[in-house]
Structure formats: C-alpha cells, structure tokens
C-alpha cells in the first residue's frame, strides 16, 4: 500500500512538473540577463520587464485585452446564467437539443470557429473591431458560464423559489432575493473564468482582431520577428493574470462547497 501511495505521489509530481516546467522556465528566463534561454543562467534583472512595458503597443494590447475580457465576462455570464436558469426552471420540447447547442462552441475546432467568425463578422462590418472580438469570445465563453451556473442551480432545493413566491415574492422579486443570492458564488466564479478564457484566447482573436490586437496576438507577432526575452516577461504577466482569475473562480466554487 505504502509503495503504491509513494508511486502515486511520484506520478503526480511528474505530471505537474511536465505541465508547469515550461511556464516555470519562462518565468525564470524573464528575470535572466542573457539574451537567449540557455544554461547556466546569467544574473538577475528586471530589464526585460522595463523594456517590454515601455512599448506603447504592449499597453495598447493590454488595454484591448482588458476591455474584451471585461465585456465578454459580463455578457457571457449573463447569457450563461439565463440559459442555465431556463434549463432549471422550465421543461419544454427539444430541451436536450437546446442544451446541446448551448454547450457546443468549445467542442468546435478553434480554427473553424475563427474562420467562420471572420467570414460572418466581415459580412456585418465588425471584423477587426473590438466588438467583433467580444462577440467571438462571448460565443466561446458562454458555455463555461452556463456550466458553472447550472451546477449551482442543481444544488438548489427547487422549493426555495416556490417558497419565495409563497411568502409574497413575484417572479422577478424571487429572482432578485432568492435565485441571484443563492447563485452569487457561481456568478462571481463565472465572471472570473470567462474573463480568463477571453484573456488567454489566441486563435479566434487572431482571425478576428485585425489592427486591434489582444495580448496573445501581440505576443505571436513579436515572436515572429525574433526570440526576445521580453516575451517571457509579458508571458509571465499574462500567466499570473489568468491564474489569479482561475484561482478566484476555484475559490468561489470551493467556498460554496463548504457552506452548502
């Protein structure tokens, strides 16, 4: 038993090393003075950060990413919650098909989705705009928001909403005073997770973005020019941002487990 447990830990350690070593290396090299990522390391420096963040196009890309992630998270969470609530509250014909459609987008190959989005958005004159990227990201992120809200609603005693009606609350009042407070942890969690999905997303944004580049698109464009440790610096910041959002989302889910 002991040996098996030890083996399990070794396996787990190896797995996490495999996943996180490249990211860890990127973080380490972002503080390394050498021009190329080689061992042994040079000396410690924050020079790459200073250089990267003195470039106006970096700030512009970060600004774009923040706007896109911010708006995407709000819109995707709203639609995701509304879809999950429809599923929770109503039974109707073709409900299974409705749910399958709602959960479909993340299963599509991103290249296909990106191409389709590009074709469609240029038809309505939105390709190359931030609005276009937001629309594309909402499509991608909504299923995640819906999944989180659905999980939370599935933990809710259906009598809770009826109890609110029974005590004098109309439909909307019950929504405001019972459903939304009950789902609050899931909603915050969905906001964080959809923001992270948008902030990280490269493929679709690359197709749709045009001149309004988001951070991942800009990183690729810098990389195409040359290998520059500034990429490690920007990458570290992006990684920390996304991880913070995902951890925040996880924290909300964990907290709600503890408090039922």
């Amino acid at each position, binding site marked *: 038993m002991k040996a098996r447990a030890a083996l399990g830990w070794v396996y787990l350690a190896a797995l996490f090393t495999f996943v996180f070593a490249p990211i860890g290396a990127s973080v380490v090299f972002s503080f390394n003075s050498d021009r190329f990522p080689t061992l042994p390391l040079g000396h410690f420096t924050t020079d790459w950060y200073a250089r990267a963040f003195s470039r106006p196009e970096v700030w512009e890309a970060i600004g774009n990413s923040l706007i896109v992630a911010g708006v995407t998270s709000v819109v995707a969470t709203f639609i995701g919650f509304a879809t999950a609530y429809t599923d929770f509250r109503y039974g109707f014909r073709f409900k299974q098909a409705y749910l399958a459609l709602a959960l479909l987008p993340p299963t599509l190959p991103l290249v296909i989705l990106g191409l389709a989005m590009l074709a469609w958005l240029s038809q309505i004159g939105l390709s190359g705009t931030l609005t276009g990227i937001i629309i594309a990201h909402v499509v991608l992120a909504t299923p995640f928001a819906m999944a989180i809200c659905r999980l939370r609603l599935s933990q809710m005693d259906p009598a809770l909403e009826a109890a609110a009606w029974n*005590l004098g609350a109309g439909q909307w009042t019950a929504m405001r005073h019972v459903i939304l407070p009950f789902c609050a942890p899931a909603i915050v969690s969905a906001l964080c997770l959809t923001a992270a999905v948008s902030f990280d997303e490269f493929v679709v944004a690359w197709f749709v973005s045009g001149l309004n580049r988001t951070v991942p698109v800009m990183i690729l464009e810098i990389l195409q020019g040359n290998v520059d440790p500034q990429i490690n610096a920007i990458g570290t910041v992006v990684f920390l941002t996304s991880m913070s959002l995902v951890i925040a989302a996880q924290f909300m889910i964990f907290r709600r487990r503890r408090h039922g």
Partner: protein
Amino acid sequence: MAEPLVQFRAVHKAFGTYVAVRALDLDIHRGEFMALMGPSGCGKTTTLRMLAGLEQPTSGTITIEGKVMNGVPPHHRDTPLVWQSLALFPFLNVVENVEFGLRMRGIATKARRDRAMLWLDRMQLTGFETRRIDQLSGGQRQRVALARSLVTEPQMLLLDEPLSALDAHLVIRMQGVLTKLQKELGITFVYVTHSQSEAFAMADRVVIMGHGEIEQIGTPQEIFRGPKTRFVAEFVGRNNILSGSVTDGMMTTAQGIVPVLSCDGPMEIVVAADRVALSRDRPAGAAIRAAFLSEEFAGTGIICYFETPDGAEWKAQVTEAQLADLQPETGQDFWLSWDPARVHVIG
C-alpha cells in the same frame, strides 16, 4: 354553520395524461386542524399546492373566504406553506429568514425586525437570530420555518409533511408544539401527511385520499373505527379485512366460516388488530386459524403478524404479558378470535 374558509368544488388536476386529483369536493372550516392523508401519489400534496396557487386546477373552482382563487398567483395569496424540505434560505440568517414575508410585503425594516423577533421568542429561538441555517439542529430549523410562515399572521397555514425529516422523539414533541400553536392562534391548519399517527394525533378532521379521490372524511375516531371503504380500512393500519358472503348469520370466507351479526349477502368486515384475541385451542365463536410470522413492538403494545392458509396477512395486538404467556414461534398455528359484535362492516 358559517361559510367554510376554503371550498374545493369539482376540482380536477391533470399533468399531461396523468390525473393527480379528480372530482374533489372539500370544505375546510375556520379554525380547524385538517389532515390530508394518503399513500404517496394519492394527490394530497397536489391538493395542497393548488390551495397555495403553486398549481392551477385543470377544471373546477377553489374559493378562499368566498373569493374564487383560480388564476391568482401564489404571491397574491395569504397561504404560507411549511415545506417538507423546509426550504429555508441558506444565504440568510435566522431572523432574515423569518422576516422574509414581511419584507416582500414592504414592511419597514424596524417594524419587520420587531415582529420577527417576537416570533423567534414565541418559538423559543431567542439568541439564535444571527445564526446561519446550517448551524441549527433539525428541531430548531423546524421552528424557524414555522415562524417564517406565521410571521404575516395568516388565516391558515399549510403544512406539507413537515415532520418527515425529524427523529421519532422530536416528531412527538413537534406534534405537541403544532397542536398547541393551532389552538392558541385559532387559525386553520391544513396538514398533509402519509403518517397515520401524525394525522390522528393532531387533526380535528382527517381526509383520506387514494388515487386522486377522497375516500373518506371524518374525525380520527370515525375513520379508525368506521372505515367506509376497503382502501381506507387497509391504509389505516392495523385492520384485518374479511370478505365473503353471508347466509343465516354465517359468513363464508377464504379463511373459514365465521358467525356475523348482519343480513345475508356479500360483504366485507373489518376486525381491528386490538380486538383480536390469540389462543392455541379453538375458542367458541368467530375465529380463524393462522400461522405466526413475527412480532413488532409498537408504541401501544406488540403487533403479532400471522399468515392464514390462503396467504392473507392478519395482525393481532397483544400486551407484553400476553406475548410472554403465548411464547409464539414462527410457523406455529394459532386461533385468532373476536367478538362478532365488535367488527365494522365496510360500506
């Protein structure tokens, strides 16, 4: 008699092709404690939910205080319900739960807090007002749910199997709390349960429902001693049912021929378990033979289970002393006898 508080008239409720309640006529009077009792799926909960407006009747009318309530949504009714799951709001503390109904009615913060505190006091929950719901015991939650429903001082209170999640000793205590409360407030309680002991212990009148229809309405005594249908006789626990046909005061049944005190023709009689006597030798009078199966300790005595040669189950209630005397073993044959004057004829 004064006009009933609630009237169901020819109420029908169907879910798709499934008929949950059919042709229901029922009056509920002011200040009475009425229990709706029946097995699961008998339509008792649907009846209660229609009263609260959570379901709308497919046809027929429901009036409360003379007003037709068809189409009136739940939040425009004054019919608070104590839920089987209690349905307390987990994101609100105790006093916030209790004052919810007042808040929905737009009562000012101070006034509603005072009234909620009054009810918490009445339910012996003072000091718990800022507790989270998950920090309360089952009995405390029960009392919070009651306070939450009663804080608006309604004309009637609906209860949907509210004690089903409690331990047996708490059930007895809460029964006392509920009957006392109902007498003190003088309001109508409509209590849905599948438990005979709960219904009979608390209710003034009991409605027995089966397959969406009312089988019998009466006081606990009337229903216990005088079941009108075989369904009621079987549902209301410790009854033995004999069916057969009578000629010259003798009834021929699958279990044997026994004397009865009624006219000729086919009939069914009920022999209550507590009116069955046990013996090893054949007694004079009405008796049948059956093999002992097992015994079960009940609150009022010991129920012995028997099987007749044709496979029917019979029950006899005995005292501990009687059981010690008889020393029954599984498979042993006994004579089950009764006084023909103390049987109930169905119908």
